[in-house]
């Protein structure tokens, strides 16, 4: 079997793992909800990968992305740890070289990436306002008593348009209730909500940018047909949903890991499948070193400290990095 590269995306809502081969074919793909135990989920995912590929594998490169990338990067021994914008752009432009605009909406955040000639040229991110992310829909679906999976399809059944104020989740809620009282149907309300989300996205992220096709829509929310339709209406063009829409970040970072290994000619620093047997412990403490009283996070593997983050001055993280450098230099 040829070379295999692993890509791991640690988002706040989901954790995704993919394995690709030399030709970027997807050999394995896993999308799981992040239950707050990323390390355990990653261990479990890697175990599944091993079983799926019949134990007969050697990993040639590992990349980690997503908001929790640092920690998991340490644990896996990643060859590359990169932000999710770069990772997403990488995968999307690979599958769709003519991409002009990438809409990405996940559970807790949303992103916009502008691409020109296969290269990302601009981006915007929203992590503060829930009204432009999947959690907005989750929330409203719950209020309406509709499973989120059916939400998007219902939107397509709407006969009339109704405008729902979607500037903020709180307003949306009260507006939704009053529109229901006016006699709009559930599917009309849902369509209104989908359009409100897209309007928010346009206001917060796109702003005065000039968008160009092709339009790619990815991230967990891309499964929602109502949102897809609302985007299509907004830009007046077809919206493409990639086959692997919910793991694009993981695919991108696997590709970046491959590129990194090719570029440096190094062997992977992947710690191996045995990490599934290691026990990791994450603790935190408040440093009393100065008035910042940082909450420092400490990661231990089998009792040994392998990472420390969260210190503003580098007092703790530098120690670890220093030790690592020494070890590398002495070759141990």
């Amino acid at each position, binding site marked *: 079997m040829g070379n295999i590269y692993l890509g791991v995306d640690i988002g706040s809502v989901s954790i995704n793992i993919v394995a690709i081969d030399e030709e970027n074919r997807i050999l394995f793909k896993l999308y799981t909800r992040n239950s707050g135990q990323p390390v355990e989920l990653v261990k479990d995912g890697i175990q599944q990968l091993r079983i799926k590929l019949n134990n007969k594998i050697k990993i040639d490169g590992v990349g980690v992305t997503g*908001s929790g990338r*640092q920690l998991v990067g340490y644990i896996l021994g990643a060859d590359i740890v*990169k*932000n*999710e*914008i*770069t990772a997403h752009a990488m995968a999307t432009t690979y599958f769709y070289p003519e991409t002009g605009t990438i809409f990405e909406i996940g559970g807790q955040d949303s992103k916009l990436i502008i691409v020109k000639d296969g*290269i*990302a*040229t*601009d*981006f915007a*991110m929203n*992590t503060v306002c829930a009204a432009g992310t999947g959690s907005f829909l989750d929330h409203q679906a719950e209020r309406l008593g509709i499973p989120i999976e059916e939400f998007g399809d219902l939107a397509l059944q709407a006969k009339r348009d109704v405008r729902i104020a979607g500037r903020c989740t709180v307003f949306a809620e009260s507006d939704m209730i009053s529109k229901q009282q006016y006699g709009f149907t559930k599917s009309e309300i849902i369509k209104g909500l989908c359009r409100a989300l897209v309007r928010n996205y346009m206001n917060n992220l796109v702003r*005065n*940018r*000039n968008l160009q096709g092709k339009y790619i829509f990815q991230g967990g929310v891309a499964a929602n047909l109502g949102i897809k339709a609302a985007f299509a209406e907004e830009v007046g063009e077809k919206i493409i949903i990639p086959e692997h829409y919910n793991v694009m970040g993981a695919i991108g970072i696997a590709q970046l890991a491959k590129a990194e290994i090719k570029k440096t000619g190094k062997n992977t620093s992947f710690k191996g499948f045995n990490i599934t047997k290691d026990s990791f412990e994450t603790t935190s403490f408040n440093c009393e070193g*100065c*008035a*910042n*009283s*940082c909450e420092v996070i400490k990661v231990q593997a089998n009792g040994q400290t392998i990472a420390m983050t969260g210190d*503003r001055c580098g007092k703790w993280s530098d120690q670890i990095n220093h030790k690592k450098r020494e070890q590398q230099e002495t070759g141990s």
Partner: protein
Amino acid sequence: MGKLKLGIPRALLYYFYYPFWEKLFSELDIELIVSNYTSREQLDKGIKYSISEICVPIKVYIGHVLDLINQGVDYVYIPRIISIKKNIFLCPKFLGLPDMIKNSIPEIENKILTHQITAKDDSLAGFKNYLGMADKLNISKWKLFWALQKANSHWQEHRKTQLQVNIDKKVLTIALIGYVYNIYDRFINMDLLRHLREMGINIVTFEMVDSQIIEQEVKLFPKPMFWEFTNKLLGAGYHFLKSPDIDGIIYVSAFGCGPDSILGSFLEIDANQANKPFMTLRIDEQTGESHLLTRIEAFVDLLKLKKS
């Protein structure tokens, strides 16, 4: 009687005028105490004493004033800098700074050392501005005069060294547009400069641009901004937009800043036109560091791809 202990908040224009103040007060035989670096604790105190609508840098400033009082200074130096250019003022927050502090921390009213500064250029050394203060502190006019001279030439020298920048064209150069108190306060911007340097980036800021160039750029505007530091950023920003050596611009803006919202829109629209990569980082009271890192890393990746 020992030397008078005068506190200077390490905030706002400290990051532009400190060399001047340092020289001035040492020449006047006054012991200067600069407040500690911004910290979580200090900022939290500043927030507590501020009205909530005010911009973040003022909240930071209030935290620093409290820190100095805590350190037992005799006075805190809070000048009212009105103008450093004819017919152009500083942001209203500066014009009302001493009053705002009195209002926020009434207990310290008699610990504020203030006077008005109206100047026609960046130098704060205009003699007349200091007469009242010298009187209050029993300093002779003669001594004041010479102290101002020395402080001024010291500061001018310092400004000249800031202008000498070499741009290494092989690595990425990013222009940072933002007020000095946002660019240089490591706490408030989550060590943006260090992160960029660790990524091997050259950084340029408005202080590195000749003021004549800045003024020329500002003149191209049918109507300049009302506030001087905003003008400087505007001029420098347009200069950077046109400079081929600048690979991208990061605009660091403070949450709650009025002037910023205008400046930011101008730059954003024209960066788009000029095809210059542009990103806005908004500084507020509690943005997460990982979010900031993600954004600057992604921005740097994008510039690298473009350059290669």
